[in-house]
């Protein structure tokens, strides 16, 4: 239960000593209630008061860390249900599943490494492996799988409800802080002991949302609050209902028993159908998946997915911008052709990527356009013939001798006005999409125009 300012005030020393930075204990209490100030700012709180309050002012959803080193990831810690209310903080992490009964384990491990690229300064790859225990193959086969997987530089999630197998698996990988996704109504006491002993996060599952709730409550009662919640694989509808309801219960209704990150296995929900898995992984990226498991990940699935995740997990208060200026590419110098676009980070990334691919030496001129995309900036009046020509006269003409300027196809209408405002310059209209740049520039080069 969230505490009101008055409840907190009752527990303060009420001396108004101001050491917390607030003028009165009452003002301090109000700020703590709003989450604006940490309780620890008051050095005079009694032990009992702290104990009462830390429980009550704890965030609604736990922040959980898994993995180590470069493969350490933070899950949970969300405070809002919609990104515009504040921001989402912990992006979902994607996992590929491998079972100890699989014939082609080596090939699957190799395949899991395939997707690996950069998008606007962020590394995009499969961050986790979801390793399922097959009882028929026995414990040794599982341990073998874990050993092989441990070398991949990915965080491991052990899908294993067998206590002995879990112990054996953790014996070889616990230092890498895997997740043990294995507690259910029948084994949770033993599993919790195994996870606690190894110092790893425990995954909980249940036949339905009620059983999941009860088992989680029972684990909390045992003192284990290092949990993630597996939303189950009964059906797509169930998994979605559980994922949404646990998040909503935690954030909106302050039900802390459900205040943990989730595991969603879309690979199991749509086995053998990679396109359906693509649809589901997108659904759960928008709606509250924390670890999302697929049967495999290829570039076709990955490219839209990582773009989506990057978009949805940006802070709505901070526009993604690059610094205005002249960016020489492919060894461009004062004689190289100039191209211009806006300072929106995404646009810069897409356009500069294509320019690099073309290998043509050039100068990319980034104008201050308020961090907006080409058409948005144009529609908002922040990318105009005046803004472009002014920037070029002030910043480019003193440094660059070439007098050819390529403008984005989407603002072809600016050509005439820019030429009128920039005597001596030839304005060339590029295609609409950056992907067409490589051919366009090579053609210009072949024709001797640049």
């Amino acid at each position, binding site marked *: 239960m969230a505490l009101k300012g008055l409840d907190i005030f009752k527990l303060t020393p009420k001396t108004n000593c101001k050491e917390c930075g607030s003028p009165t204990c009452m003002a301090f209490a109000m700020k703590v209630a709003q989450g604006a100030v940490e309780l620890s700012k008051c050095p005079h709180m009694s032990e009992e008061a702290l104990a009462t309050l830390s429980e009550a002012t704890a965030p609604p959803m736990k922040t959980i860390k898994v993995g180590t080193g470069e493969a350490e990831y933070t899950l949970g810690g969300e405070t809002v249900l*919609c*990104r515009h209310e504040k921001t989402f903080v912990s992006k979902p992490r994607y996992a590929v599943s491998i079972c100890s009964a699989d014939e082609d384990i080596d090939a699957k491990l190799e395949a899991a490494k395939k997707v690996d690229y950069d998008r606007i300064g962020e590394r995009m790859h499969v961050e986790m492996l979801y390793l399922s225990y097959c009882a028929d193959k026995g414990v040794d086969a599982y341990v073998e799988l874990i050993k092989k997987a441990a070398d991949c530089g990915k965080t491991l999630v052990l899908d294993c409800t067998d206590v002995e197998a879990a112990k054996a698996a953790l014996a070889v990988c616990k230092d890498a802080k895997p997740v043990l996704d294995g507690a259910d109504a029948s084994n949770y006491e033993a599993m919790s002991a195994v996870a606690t002993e190894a110092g790893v996060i425990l995954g909980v599952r249940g036949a339905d949302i009620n059983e999941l709730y009860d088992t989680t409550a029972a684990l909390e009662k045992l003192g284990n609050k290092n949990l993630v919640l597996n939303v189950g694989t009964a059906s797509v*509808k169930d998994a979605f209902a559980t994922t949404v*309801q646990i998040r*909503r219960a935690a954030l909106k209704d302050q039900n802390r028993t459900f205040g943990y990150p989730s595991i969603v296995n879309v690979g199991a929900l749509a086995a053998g159908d990679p396109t359906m898995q693509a*649809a589901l992984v997108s*659904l759960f990226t928008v709606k509250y998946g924390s670890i999302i498991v697929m049967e495999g990940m290829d570039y*076709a699935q990955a490219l839209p997915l990582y773009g989506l995740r990057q978009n949805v997990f940006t802070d*709505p208060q901070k526009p993604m911008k690059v610094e205005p200026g002249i960016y020489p590419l492919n060894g461009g110098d004062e004689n190289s052709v100039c191209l211009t676009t806006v300072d929106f980070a*995404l646009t810069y990334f897409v356009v500069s990527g294509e320019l690099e691919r073309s290998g043509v030496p050039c100068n990319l001129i980034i104008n201050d356009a308020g961090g907006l995309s080409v058409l948005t900036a144009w529609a908002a009046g922040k990318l105009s013939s005046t803004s472009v020509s002014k920037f070029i006269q002030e910043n480019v003409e003193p440094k660059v001798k070439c007098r050819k300027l390529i403008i984005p196809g989407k603002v072809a209408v600016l050509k005439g006005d820019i030429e009128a405002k920039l005597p001596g310059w030839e304005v060339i209209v590029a295609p609409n999409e950056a992907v067409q740049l490589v051919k366009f520039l090579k053609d210009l080069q072949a024709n001797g125009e640049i």
Partner: protein
Amino acid sequence: MPFTGKSGKFNAAIRTVEIGTGDKAVKLGGENVLPFYTFDAPIENAPKIGVLITDMGLENEVAGIKDYYAGATTFAEIAKKAEEMPGADFVVLRFEGADPNGENRSVEDCVAIAKEVGDAITAPLVIEGCKNVEKDAELFSKVAEALQGKNVLILSAREENYKAVAAAAGLAYGQKVGAESAVDINLAKQLNVLIGQLGVDQANVVMNVGSAAAGYGFEYVVSTMDRVKAAALAQGDVQLQMPIMTPVADEAWNVKEAMASEADMPEWGSQEERGIDMEVETAAAVLASGSNAVILKHPTSVATISKLIKALV
């Protein structure tokens, strides 16, 4: 003690708008819960899928789309196949070629194509223009007139041309009006108000609140839809209770991930699959954010999103 979640059912609901006529007419909207929250209350009408065809024919489409339409040459034949596509609920005809800066197809020719398509199918029809506001205004008025009685949706009336478009479609010829705005809840609301002030019954309006491909400014699409649904349902804002239709195909197939050739990007694999996954993932995300209908074009995307909707509703 079992889990007792509070219900997220709202007192307000999204308006139900029907497009088309007869057995195949389609109902959009009607729900009083957030997208796919069937655990709060049943979803009145499952989200619907439109199949996109254009006046440019099939020449520029990928192999899988060409294959699906194999043998169909006239617009009537293509439209017929589109309505038969497994998972399709309605057909969308887009007049890409009407653009004065492109093919500049005449309004008369467009009307003829619209009639051919309208007569060939029994599924509901949605008409998209070329995005040139003046040309669209004329085109939409004439098409709305020519297809009287078919209850088509004209997508879209925009800030610049809503007077002509909404008056013709919504008042003179009894069609449904699509209100298109640029990823901003205030713009969406303002346009709905203006269209209402013209005298168009709000029960005949569908919104397109803007779209983008996944990865391309998509956070604004998510947040706009989240906010529109919150205003419509939680605050009962009647000016935002129109169902949302989102054109996905146009955006998805025009970004690098779908356009770059295999020769240019060998490690990326099949170009067609990249397009399909971009279309599918964008569609799933806009449906999760509140779209009541999506417009797609690849048969695999239509089948997959149809499967997703069935699994969730």
